[in-house]
């Protein structure tokens, strides 16, 4: 049975239902959104249950022709990597709906419609196995996010919203050209027009076009990750977005960039991946250190968390491009971890912002006394973000560093320094906000977090410890997927090298008797 279509379209249908509710009945709208997000979550659990952890390749596939004359298919399917991201998305969506319960006061209907459309788009991206479909979902998501930042955001929301759309659009349009180029290359190779990711992966490409195509895809994905120096939209978008927007942005949207690398850019262009590996690794290391250093000097907690995202996503990129099993699997786990920890951090920041309407670190101090429960949650989440053992952050970062050291010692040393810096900025921030005396009289009467807010945080904290102590369910599911990506890259490269050797031999042979057999030499082009 097709489980993925209902999963993707549940939130989209939900948004239509919300649209039919009169806009005055805000409580009904919130209720419907919550129900829809819970249904989506349950569907994702069904998908999780249906997923065969031992099976390799794409599971739960659906493949229906959509625009037949152009070879566009509605092709869905998931492997372990997409599975985890799907579940992460649906969990965060519920939490976001809950967290917006009080904080969204105007345009409630539009807000929840955007939220649901966004969820549908994100799930679509993680399920799509047709490049055209992937592109559609990738682009469609921009629109609700644009509205979420632009309407419900902070004071500089308009600037942040437009910057977000323009940055992403720039990358994705060039990706569109690359997709089309690939599509015609495959047609020359196999005589079939298709956007099927799995088929396109089999296309052997000469090195130069591979570089260009990789560059186009990598640009689109790197903007989304965001990789230094393409990260400048991120702090603006994060700081201006409403809490739920930041959570989704950090928790899921950024993952689409890294997901794009592992699903499309790396397996499709293995040679280019090898060529670009050092450059991207260096950029990732710069992102790790730069993000951490900039976080350290932030006065606003939310922008601190935003810059810490740059640093953490740098770890993910570094892990992916170490190209070995440990680091890549660590990177995938770290994608999930970052979604959980940073999502939780943004939620926590949102909670104190609702109370004090400021996020300046200097305004706070001594919150441990007035808000003990909040402080406890904050500490757990913060430690998981640093990567303390027994929290999820440790598992991911440790594996990434292990794999990176294996691949390149120098990278490993630099990246490890990022972990230390992370501890510095996080702990220092925590100290200034939570410990000490209550210096600001406005903080004296702050209420601790209520049951709704606790319900939001508890699942995340449970996940933090669960993944930190017993990560094997995640590993079991991502292992075959990651192995397959690496194997595919190796195999294609190996085949290419063999072909090259054969070509060289034939070339040598031809040179020997060049006078007798003057044939056209297209060997290198094919």
């Amino acid at each position, binding site marked *: 049975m097709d489980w993925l279509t209902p999963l993707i379209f549940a939130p989209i249908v939900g948004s239509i239902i919300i649209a039919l509710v009169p806009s005055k009945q805000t409580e009904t709208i919130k209720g419907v959104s919550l129900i829809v997000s819970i249904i989506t979550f349950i569907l994702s659990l069904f998908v999780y249950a249906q997923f065969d952890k031992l099976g390799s390749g794409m599971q739960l596939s659906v493949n229906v022709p959509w625009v037949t004359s152009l070879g566009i298919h509605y092709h869905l399917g998931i492997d372990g990597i997409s599975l985890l991201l799907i579940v992460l998305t649906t969990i965060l969506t519920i939490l976001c709906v809950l967290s917006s319960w009080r904080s969204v006061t105007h345009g409630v209907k539009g807000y929840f419609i955007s939220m649901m459309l966004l969820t549908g788009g994100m799930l679509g991206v993680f399920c799509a196995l047709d490049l055209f479909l992937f592109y559609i979902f990738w682009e*469609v998501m921009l629109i609700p996010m644009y509205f979420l930042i632009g*309407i419900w955001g902070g004071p500089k929301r*308009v600037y942040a*919203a437009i910057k977000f*759309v323009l940055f992403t659009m720039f990358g994705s349009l060039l990706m*569109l*050209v690359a997709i089309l180029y690939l599509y015609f290359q495959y047609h020359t190779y196999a005589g079939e027009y298709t956007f099927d990711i799995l088929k396109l992966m089999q296309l052997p490409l000469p090195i130069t076009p591979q570089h260009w195509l990789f560059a186009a895809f990598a640009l689109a994905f790197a903007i989304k990750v965001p990789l230094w120096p393409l990260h400048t939209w991120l702090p603006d978008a994060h700081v201006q977005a409403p809490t739920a927007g930041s959570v989704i942005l950090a928790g899921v949207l950024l993952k689409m960039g890294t997901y794009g690398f592992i699903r499309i850019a790396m397996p499709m262009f293995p040679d280019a991946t090898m060529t670009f590996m050092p450059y991207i690794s260096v950029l990732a290391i710069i992102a790790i250190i730069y993000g951490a250093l900039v976080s350290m000097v932030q006065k606003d907690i939310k922008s601190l968390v935003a810059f810490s995202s740059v640093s953490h996503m740098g770890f993910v990129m570094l892990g992916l491009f170490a190209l070995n099993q440990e680091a890549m699997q660590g990177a995938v786990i770290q994608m999930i971890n970052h979604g959980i920890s940073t999502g939780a951090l943004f939620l926590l920041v949102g909670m104190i912002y609702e109370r004090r309407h400021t996020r300046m670190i200097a305004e706070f101090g001594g919150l441990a006394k007035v808000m003990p429960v909040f402080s406890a949650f904050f500490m757990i989440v913060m430690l998981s973000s640093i990567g303390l053992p027994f929290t999820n952050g440790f598992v991911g970062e440790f594996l990434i560093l292990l794999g990176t050291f294996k691949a390149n010692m120098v990278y490993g040393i630099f990246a490890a320094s990022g972990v230390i810096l992370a501890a510095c900025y996080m702990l220092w921030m925590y100290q200034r906000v939570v410990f000490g005396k209550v210096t600001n009289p406005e903080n004296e009467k702050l209420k601790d977090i209520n049951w709704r807010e606790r319900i939001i945080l508890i699942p995340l904290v449970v996940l933090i410890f669960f993944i930190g102590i017993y990560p094997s369910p995640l590993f079991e599911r991502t292992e075959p997927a990651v192995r397959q990506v690496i194997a595919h890259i190796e195999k294609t490269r190996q085949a290419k090298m063999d072909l090259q050797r054969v070509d060289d031999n034939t070339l040598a042979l031809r040179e020997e008797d060049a006078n007798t057999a003057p044939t056209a030499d297209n060997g290198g082009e094919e």
Partner: protein
Amino acid sequence: MVDYVSTVNPDFSLIAPELVLLIAASIIMVFIPWRKMATFAPAIALLGVVVAFAYAIGQWGHQSSGFAGMVTCDNFGVIFKWIFLTATGLSILLIGQYMKSRGIDRPEYFVLLTISALGMMAMANTTDLVVMFIGLEVMSVPLYVMAAFNRRSLESNEAGIKYFLMGAFATAFLLMGIAFIYGAAGTTNLRQVVTDFNYIAAGRGMYLYAGVALIMIGFGFKVGAVPFHSWIPDVYHGAPTPVTAFFSVAPKAAAVAVLLRIFLYGFADITMVSHSFWVLAVLTMTVGNVLALRQNNVKRMLAYSSIAHAGYILVALTVGTDAAISAAIFYVIAYTFFNLGAFAIVALLETRMGAESEFEELAGLSKSAPYLALLLAVFMFALSGFPPTVGFFGKFYIFRAAIESNFVSLAVIGVLNSFVSVYYYLRVVKTCYFDEAEKPQKAVFVPATVGLALVVTTVATLGFGLFPQQLLQFTKQAIFAFL
């Protein structure tokens, strides 16, 4: 070669839609003195359009020519008939209260509109340059009057005069071009030119090429290609908004039809044609988009955006393959719907007192008229080429054709332009949704006809975006008949 038999027995079924429009226009014209005609004229015109459309549907799939080879009826021409009739019908619907609010609700307008549509249909359904020219004039002369239809407004008068002067200027180029081609080939029928092409090119190539260049300039004016675009912003801005809506789609579609027919059927063997279109396409896209960035009036912005969209269509002309022709037709259809939709809303908002379509007037529209704001946003996303609208698919299809024929650099320039355009289209959305109105806005009254036009355009914009298969099939079959 001339088919004398059909001259004796003219086959009127070939021009049935044209005749229907002529009859509708005549009925309105005869009864103009009758006072109530102002209310009946739109209905009669609309009925004419619908009946003509029904006849035009019947013409699909037949390939024939008649009137001594002067009229050609092929799928290519027929699909353009549909486009013109759809644009005309929607333009009648979207007028609503606009003309009344300006005190210019006169029945003559509908005569002009239908006659102009008749001219377009004649242009698209012939291979003879002289008939094309006559069709062009039949189309253009009513347009000049329509531009100046708000005769008490200085700007409208300016638009009319400007359009007329530029149009006359362009016509001169065109006529000179046709004369050169006649001089070189001894015929004005493209079919003959195609048959004897090598012979003509070898003997009197210079004259032929000069003629082709002049024709390209003439239609460059009509389609609004840079550097022949300077009239567009003022004319689009000055003319009454429903007229501008019609201008931005129908005459442009007609010019595209003729460009496709002349250059991809008639002179497809001249390599310089593709090079020239390359330059025109890049200039048109870039200049249109860059200048649109700086506009503070929505109508003017849409005028520049229409230049940019002509540029995307010119990309298809540069490529020139069957896939590109099909993509160009698809794009024209897509553009017709979403651009008319956008203009319908702009016209509606202008029925409020003192509205001039400045950007500030849109502020807070999401509060005062949430549905209109939403539809406007949909059309803006379509114009900027976001999925899942048909605007995305149209662009996708054009760039697909370009990359298929190895015009990768052109496709890259195209998508970068499309990137630039996102900024100014989103500015409309931003103003509607993110900005607060300075003073409370009046509610907007939406007449039923305008509502219908909006429903049709929205359904087409989203429907063809999600399910383009059917429309693609039609555009693929809309190839030239080689009779």
